[in-house]
């Protein structure tokens, strides 16, 4: 079972994602901020991270760079309420992005794609 780490400072989003993604067969763990995120990733070894871009104390795009520099190939999906973030070139280091919605069809599709991605070594 793939393990997904949801990083979002909005409780209702963490609950929504957790419930729906568990129903879809994933193991879900959550974090309410970017505090010690890299240590958490090191410890929990998630297969994928869903990362909110705008959190009260953290910039998701900066966290994305931190993740990318330490876990080069860990799939990261950016989750955002606005799609203006694409103007920031940091966002191209993400595997995919989704605009937040109560309908998680798009998110589930991107999760499946990110987990299926295969680059033979």
């Amino acid at each position: 079972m793939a393990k997904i780490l949801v990083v979002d400072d909005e409780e209702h989003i963490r609950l929504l994602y957790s419930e729906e993604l568990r129903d879809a067969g994933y193991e879900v763990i959550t974090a309410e901020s970017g505090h010690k995120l890299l240590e958490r990733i090191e410890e929990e070894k998630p297969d994928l991270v869903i990362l909110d871009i705008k959190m009260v104390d953290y910039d998701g795009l900066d966290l994305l760079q931190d993740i990318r520099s330490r876990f080069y190939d860990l799939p990261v999906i950016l989750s955002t309420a606005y799609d203006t973030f694409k103007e920031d070139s940091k966002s191209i280091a993400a595997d995919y992005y989704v605009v937040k919605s109560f309908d998680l069809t798009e998110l589930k599709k991107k999760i499946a794609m990110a987990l299926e991605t295969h680059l033979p070594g």
Partner: protein
Amino acid sequence: MIAVEENPQNVQQADIVVAIPTFNEAAFIGRAVEIVGRGLREHYPDRSSVIINCDNHSVDGTREAFFQAPVEVPRLYLSTEPNRRGKGANLRMLLEKLTALNPHAVLILEADITNMAPVWVRLFLEPVFRGAAYVTPLYVRHKYESTLTSTVVYPMLRCLYGRRVRQPDAGDCAFRGDLVGAFLNAPAWSEAVDGTGIDVWMGTVALTCRVPVWQSLIGSPKRHRAKDPFAHLAARFRNILTAMFDQMAAYAHLWTRVKWSKPTALFNLDGHEMDNPPLVEINAARLHQRFLEGFPENESLWRQVFDPAVMNKLDEIRRMPYEQFTFPSQTWAAVLFDAACAYQRLENQERPRLLDSLIPLYLGKVVAFVKRTERMSVQQAEDHVEETCAIFEEYKPYLVDRWPS
């Protein structure tokens, strides 16, 4: 093969090699050497370095201008034999020399970049010192600049090899010294690679080595000698597709197993865009005309190459009035995938005819791209390119199923 070598400072080893390939660049190489020299002095004063001019036996005084440039960095001049031309031939010679110099990092910059700045040396080389094996630039580009990259090279390399490298054929790159052996031993070197196919060829070799590939945000456009993007298109198109299709045969065991794609690491994220890209104007009506003119000449060949459903779609596109013209990305992907498969089945002497026949279709795709993005910002046009790439990835099983075993 190195026909001429001049090494007045007797350089035997260097941590950093900066190579400048040329053919008759006397007007530009002096400035390039000066900028590179300043960049090396400012950013890597403690590392041994050498600037190498890899020349095609220029007759305009390039060699003299190279040595006369007022910099302290040691210089080395290499030239191919008089009748051997092409950037690939220059770089092949460089690779041979690099085995002796054993550098930690290598940077290749084209001579005629008029806005090159000393910091570019750092923007390309620093990722190598931080763990990258191959570095490509992300220049600031107008949405219509390098349409061959946006519509062919980027979508194809991304769906084949699974890495999102946006400007893999930018012409400038940096790499770790230990990749030299991989380049020298890599398959599918050809006459096309001797010429303008070299950039795609090197990028592909790096992608297939499964080493860390980074992109570096340069923050500026690449300004060079004014060039008509559609001048010399036939030769460039043929060289690039030859390199790409030959490498597909060589690396089929790898790319047929690649599914979807992944981003690369990025460097210089805190850098700011300092300069707007030069405006690129495209005469879409003229290109549309050339698209239509391609049918009578190539239709019988296309019917042998393309799936009947693709051919029907092309017929449909041909009948569209210019005002409503579109060229769906699924059809474009199928055109390139069918052509890649047909290329493998053809004899060597038949292949150029196939590649040349694709040019009108490529121009049709450019027309559709221009019409679709004409009111879009650069960012929106970029999103459209990303959507096209996603379609190529989604449609890749079509290619894998048809690939000749």
